[in-house]
Each structure stands twice: as C-alpha cells, then as structure tokens.
C-alpha cells in the first residue's frame, strides 16, 4: 500500500528506491518472515532455511550495504534514502530488517577509520559479497550487563565496580579477548564477523571499553544455541564466547580514550534506526486493521462505519505519521552532525516503538477474536512490536539515559559556526 509522504522534497530517486524496497518487502520478506515465525530457532538458521533465501536476495540487491559509501563499494545513499529503505524493509519484517542492518555494522565501522587493514580485510569483501557468506553481528550486550552497556554519559557508565564480562588486553601486536557476549547478540550464531565491544580498562568502568571489528573464525571463538523468543523470531540471536582469542591490533576502531563519546554517536544512529523501523511495523499493523475494518461486517455493516473504529484508526494513523516525522528528523540530524544529539534519537526510539506497540495492540482489538489467531498477520506484528520496547536498550533505561542527557545539555546549542 502506498502512502502520502509529507516531505515535499522527495525526488524521483527517493521515490524509486521506496518502490523497489517496498516490492522486496512485500514479495520476499513478508512470506519468508511468516514461514520463519513458525519454525524453531534452529530451523530458522538451518542451511536450507528460507532465511538464507532472504539474505541472499537482500545481498544481491545491495541492501546489506546501505550505510556504506560507494567509494568503498557500498551504495551512494543520502540519509533520507537510508531512512526510506529502513521503513519499507521493516514493513516487510522488522526482525529480518534488524538482522540485515546488524550484518553490516562491522564493515561500516571500518569505513569510519578508512584504515587500509580494515578496508582491505573487512569492508571491501563485505561489499563485494552477493551470497550472504559474510555476515556481521552486534556484540555489545553481556549476560549481566544489558542496560549497563548503553548508558554513555551517565555516571554508572564510569563506575569501576561494574566489571565487563568480555575483556581485551594488548599483548605485543595483538589484543587477547576473553569472556562472553549475551544470548541477545543479534545475528550472533550465524555471523562470520563481529562488531565487538570489550572492556579494556576496568578502572574506567564501561567507559574504559573499545570497539573492534573482528572475524569469528579465529581459534577460541565458540557460539551458543540460537535464542527462542516471543517476537522477531526471524531475527537470529545468540551467545558468543571468547577464550584467549588473539586479534591484530589493527582491528581496534576506537579505544578507551574516545569510547564513551564514540558509543554515544553510534547509539544515536542505532536508536534512531529503531524509530525508523517502528514506522514500518506500525504502518503494517495500521494497514492490516484498515483493510479488516472495511471488510468485517458486524451489526449489519462494516466495522469501519462505527465511529469508535474510525477514532481508533485515526489514532493509529496519527502515531504512524508522528513517528515518521520524529524518526526521520533524529536520523537526519545525527547523520549530519558528528557531535550527536542522542537524546533526540532516543525520543525517536521510545516514541516510535511505543507507538508501534500501541498501533498493533489496537489493531488486534479491531480484529477481535481473529486478531488472536495465527491465521492473521496482525498477531505476529504485535509480538514483533512488543519485542521492540526492549530491543536495542529497553525504553525505561533509554529514558533514564536521555533524561540525564537532557538535564545536562538543555538547551543544546550547535556550536559549529
């Protein structure tokens, strides 16, 4: 279903990208996501699973490298075009979209430094890959530290009593990595590479960490079982263990000297992405409800003729549109400023995911009993949206983090003249 875009500056390229992403979401992602939703986590990632059909098609079309500039082999997309594609893919399946986005983080990290080692070993091969044989994961969360890892700028982030469970130590020309990452590592059990966050100087708490781009075929790396969960069952997640894993020191992107602010910048993009994904899933739920309300007859007339249903649909519409405005604005601002304003991205994430959840919830109410049935897509959208309230930083934690930031920085001024 097409929609009116309030951005009057969209050009022909933007619209063409939206249409092709929507076609892919509708024809490839929707049916595959539905199939994967009914499988076990092991079946989802099996060799002959449709998950790999999706991945290969996405790689063939270049959707795995939407964040990477064309001078490295990626796509030459503007921040707005990236936002448009993220919304459309999430309309098809938010779980598959998160996985695909995460798959490229390690390579995107390489482009931030431009260092030959990272470009030659990771960025170029990833961009040239068209069969999904190179897949990254987002290795930040730890079994005892979920929210702890996403609080840059907050005092607890510098608390030396909070010890990380995955640590890196320099030994000659190599870093030695020991410990583990949690079962919530997105794409953890299928990944060939990792965008890895490790504590390096425990006296600084989590602020004393570093970010590495590493391959996962090294001696000492092992993985846990894929996680079974309520929603986004098409998104692979699972543990990774490190036992004296040695990586060249060139794999380090940023160390403790700049980690905290660098993480803030990274999170300002990932949380805004969650806001963009929220538009897609909320729109999907709204459209399901609209269509159902037009066709379902109760009391001798279609549901849509009842004022309370019209009001519910308007509320859904309002939430979809405001989520798009806020999420695109936060994404655009933070993609145009290296001094990020993370609290605005957190507004996009919290507002967007809460709206997506409420839209899916109200949509089920319109569906009535049918909304509870596996026969209709809406119950999957509801479960997927529920997961988003916790995914990528629970909304409660993010609110604490953004609240702290807001108090410290308001009124934030852009001092670049």
């Amino acid at each position, binding site marked *: 279903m097409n929609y009116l875009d309030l951005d009057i500056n969209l050009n022909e390229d933007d619209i063409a990208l939206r249409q092709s992403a929507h076609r892919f979401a509708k024809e490839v992602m929707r049916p595959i996501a539905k199939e994967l939703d009914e499988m076990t986590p092991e079946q989802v990632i099996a060799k002959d699973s449709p998950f790999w059909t999706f991945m290969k098609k996405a790689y063939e079309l270049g959707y795995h490298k939407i*964040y*990477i*500039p*064309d*001078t*490295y082999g990626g796509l*030459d*997309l*503007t*921040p707005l075009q*990236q936002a448009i594609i993220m919304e459309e893919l999430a309309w098809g399946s938010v779980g598959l979209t998160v996985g695909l986005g995460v798959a490229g983080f390690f390579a995107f990290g390489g*482009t*931030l*430094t*431009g*260092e030959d080692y990272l*470009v030659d070993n990771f960025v170029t091969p990833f961009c040239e890959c068209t069969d999904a044989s190179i897949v990254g994961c987002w290795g930040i969360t730890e079994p005892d530290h979920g929210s702890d890892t996403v609080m840059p700028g907050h005092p607890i982030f510098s608390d030396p009593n909070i010890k990380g469970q995955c640590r890196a130590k320099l030994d000659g020309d190599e870093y030695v990595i020991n410990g583990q990452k949690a079962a919530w590592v997105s794409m953890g059990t299928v990944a060939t590479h990792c965008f890895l966050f490790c504590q390096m100087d425990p006296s600084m708490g989590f602020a004393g960490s570093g970010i590495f781009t590493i391959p996962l075929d090294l001696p000492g790396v092992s993985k846990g079982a894929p996680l079974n969960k309520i929603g986004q069952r098409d998104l692979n997640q699972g543990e990774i263990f490190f036992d004296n894993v040695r990586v060249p020191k060139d794999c380090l*992107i*940023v*160390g403790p*000297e*700049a*980690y*905290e*602010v*660098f993480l803030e*910048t990274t999170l300002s993009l990932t949380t805004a992405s969650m806001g963009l994904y929220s538009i897609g899933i909320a729109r999907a739920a709204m459209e399901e409800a609209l269509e159902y309300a037009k066709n379902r007859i109760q009391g001798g007339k279609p549901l849509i003729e009842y004022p309370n249903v019209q009001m519910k649909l308007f509320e859904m519409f309002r939430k979809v549109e405001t989520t798009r405005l806020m999420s695109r604005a936060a994404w655009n601002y933070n*993609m*145009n*400023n*290296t*001094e990020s304003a993370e609290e605005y991205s957190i507004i996009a994430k919290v507002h967007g995911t809460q709206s997506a959840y409420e839209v899916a919830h109200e949509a089920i109410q319109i569906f009535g009993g049918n909304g509870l049935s596996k026969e209709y897509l809406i119950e999957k959208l509801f479960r997927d949206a529920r997961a988003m309230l916790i995914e990528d930083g629970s909304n409660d934690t993010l609110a604490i983090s953004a609240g702290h930031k807001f108090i410290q920085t308001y009124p934030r001024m*852009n*001092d*670049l*003249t």
Partner: protein
Amino acid sequence: MGVYFKDQKHMYEFLEDLWKHIVFEAGLGEKLRAYEVSYRYKITDPDGYIYIDADNVITGEEANRDAVLRMEMSADTVVLFWLKKLSLPVALATRKIKAKGPIPKMLKMTPALKPIYPIFPEFCKKHNVPID
C-alpha cells in the same frame, strides 16, 4: 598559538600550497566535482578559514562561506591528523574535530583524501613546519 605555525600568514601559505596541489594537480578536484563536495575548515590557533571545492582553494575571511562539509579544528590538529597521529573516529569523538554535513559524504571522501598523507611531511618541510 599552536606549535606548528608561526602565525596566520604562515598557516595560510602552507594550506593553500598543499590544497592547491591536491585539488588542481593530484586530481582531487575531479572527485570533488563528481561527488558534489566542498569543504570549509574553520581553524583556531592561529585562527583562519579555508574553503575548498573543485575550482577553488580560498583562505581568509572570504573562505568563511557555506560548504557541504564544514569542519572545525585547531591548526595543531590539522597537522597531527595528516601525520596520522590522530585517527578520525578518535578526533571526532574527543571533539578535536567537529564536523557538520552528511556523514555519508564525509566517509565517501576518505579514500580520495588518502594521497595527502604521504606528501604531507614534504609540504611541512617545504614550509618549515616543525614536525620532527
């Protein structure tokens, strides 16, 4: 005042010479044109501006104009960055370099700027910038 340049005049002579070489002789100009990128650097200690696009390398107040990518840093940071003593992510995170403009364009330009690294020390030598 930083440690590398005697004064604003010294800095402008150095930067103009370097960037004119890179843009007009080493081929960066064509890339700037193709990628539709222009730069404006606001520099401190000594203070000054430099503007660069496919056809222009301008210093002084005239260079304080709108550009696709606007950067702000100290003169010492300019030198340390091109000597590879400061990585871009670290410089951005520690606010030694501030930047405004599309990050995709900034990253896209990184490979095109690589030829500056090997010739930078030669230009320092030529202009008596004390890097040793």
